[in-house]
């Protein structure tokens, strides 16, 4: 077995003057879930489609299970499933069971084997009761679950999910993340996910790769990413209105936003902690409430891509 499940090396893809992906390199280990975060146009989908061979890239190389993904595309597709963003991925005029039967056959799986796997997938994804109903009547979440089941029907080792939570309600999103985790923990699958849903990525992924304008700007585990940005956000409620001197002083220490007596401060460095306490004490405005704000992945993401400076809300 090769060291990595996916090895992307120096990938470049351009469309005319636009560079969609610019010399990115990363690896996905066997049996892990890697999340790709990034704003629209950051190159997430181009990366996924390049791995799947749906896009011909300009430079670089991609290997999956140690095999060159371009030269061995069909062989790799036997072990790869995918749900693509912005596409239906399934036939809505058919039932989930018919879809599963079709996609199994189109991947070369025999009818008997397909029936057995379809039954398991329908049960585990809570689609059993609607297995014979036309999908057109389904909610977005149920359609998405069915698309994921179809991507799993040929029992692939690797699954690529492009925005799998788009339009899903909280309950189905939670069910999906538990199911995907189970697939990785129990069956050793490897999953690569792109999503705008930070909560989903945070709870399901082992590592996160952040992309911006076709480049990788961060590539770490969720825990180390959160640790890196931990303890720098503070929410302070004053007894009296903040003085101009206090606002001026705190602004020098980092990003500050005010709303009446409530201040939110992002320290540029934890070294400024003492200065912050001293400034608050000197101002004599009185402190009613003081708390450290726990960063969620969304804050970190905005911080990394540099779009969130000064205008994102802190969760308290």
């Amino acid at each position, binding site marked *: 077995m090769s060291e990595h499940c996916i090895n992307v090396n120096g990938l470049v893809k351009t*469309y005319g003057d636009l560079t969609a992906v610019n010399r990115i390199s990363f690896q996905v280990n066997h049996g892990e879930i890697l999340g790709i975060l990034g704003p629209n146009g950051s190159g997430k989908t*181009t990366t996924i*489609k390049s791995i*799947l*061979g*749906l*896009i*011909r890239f300009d430079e670089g190389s991609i290997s999956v299970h140690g095999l060159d993904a371009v030269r061995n595309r*069909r*062989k790799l*597709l*036997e072990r*790869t*499933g*995918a749900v*693509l963003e*912005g*596409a*239906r*991925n*399934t*036939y*809505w*005029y*058919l039932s989930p069971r*018919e879809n599963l*039967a*079709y*996609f*199994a*056959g*189109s*991947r*070369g*799986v*025999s*009818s008997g084997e397909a029936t057995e796997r379809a039954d398991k997938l329908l049960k585990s994804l809570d689609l059993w009761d609607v297995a014979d109903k*036309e999908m057109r009547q389904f909610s977005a979440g149920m359609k998405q679950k069915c698309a994921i089941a*179809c991507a799993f029907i040929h029992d692939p080792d690797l699954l690529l999910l492009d925005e799998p939570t788009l339009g899903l309600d909280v309950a189905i999103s939670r069910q999906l993340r538990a199911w995907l985790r189970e697939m990785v923990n129990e069956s050793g699958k490897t999953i690569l996910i792109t999503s705008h849903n930070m909560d989903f990525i945070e709870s399901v992924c082992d590592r996160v790769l952040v992309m911006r304008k076709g480049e990788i700007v961060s590539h770490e585990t969720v825990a180390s990413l959160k640790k890196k940005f931990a303890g720098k956000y503070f929410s302070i409620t004053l007894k009296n209105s903040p003085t101009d001197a206090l606002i001026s002083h705190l602004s020098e220490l980092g990003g500050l936003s005010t709303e009446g007596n409530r201040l939110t401060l992002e320290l540029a460095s934890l070294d400024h902690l003492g200065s912050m306490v001293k400034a608050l004490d000197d101002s004599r405005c009185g402190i009613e409430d003081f708390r450290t704000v726990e960063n969620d992945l969304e804050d970190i993401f905005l911080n990394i891509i540099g779009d969130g400076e000064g205008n994102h809300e802190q969760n308290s």
Partner: protein
Amino acid sequence: MSKTLNLALAEAKLVFWSMKRYMLDTLAAIGIMFLIFMGMFWGVKTIGGSGVTGESLDDMLVGYVLWMSAMFCMQSTGSEITTESQRGTLEQLYLSPLGAHRVLFFRALMNMVFNFFFVTVLLYLSMAATGRWLSVNLPFLYAMVLLSTLSLVGISFMLGGISLIHKRIQALGGILSFGLIGLMLLPTYPMNACSFLPFIAGAALVRNTIVSGDSYPLWWYGFVAANSAFYLLAGLMIFKVFERRAMKLNKMGQY
């Protein structure tokens, strides 16, 4: 081999489920084809009067059925790609380890098989309505229509390739289909330049054998088969060229 067979069965099921889901549309299509034929038949009889012979009416009947099959085959892959693209399922076909061209080929083949059934219904309906009963050797008819229309499946792959990039090509498919009516009147035997065009040598063979009882040497059947094989392979090769271009431009999932 067994994987290819599983794919063929899956395509047969999909075509059957589609027809079942859209049964009313399928029946309406047969009804319209029948009405068009009857309109043509009575038109020719009325205008031609006593000058219209029984053989020319038979010729018209077989010609119409052949043209229907041909039109259907020629537009099959192009319209499948357009529909799959609109539905948002085209990229999933490209994730088949057996190759999208195989998926689309078996889709076209299964559509042809189901189409034969409807054409047979149309043929018998037309014979019953006109009172002209041809002695139709159905296995021969199917074998020969399949053999000759495979060349049009090749043309449909060429159109399919164009549709991967340009998406809507129904008008082009329509023009070519109607162009076929004129081409089917061209002489193809003994061998001449027209014999090398797709489909028409096979169509003439079917028509003349069934209507006039003509017989052809064995090598001519071989020639029809070679003609079909050539256009089918050429169509697949051209499709692959457009496919590579669509992948380069990231046009596969867009509509």
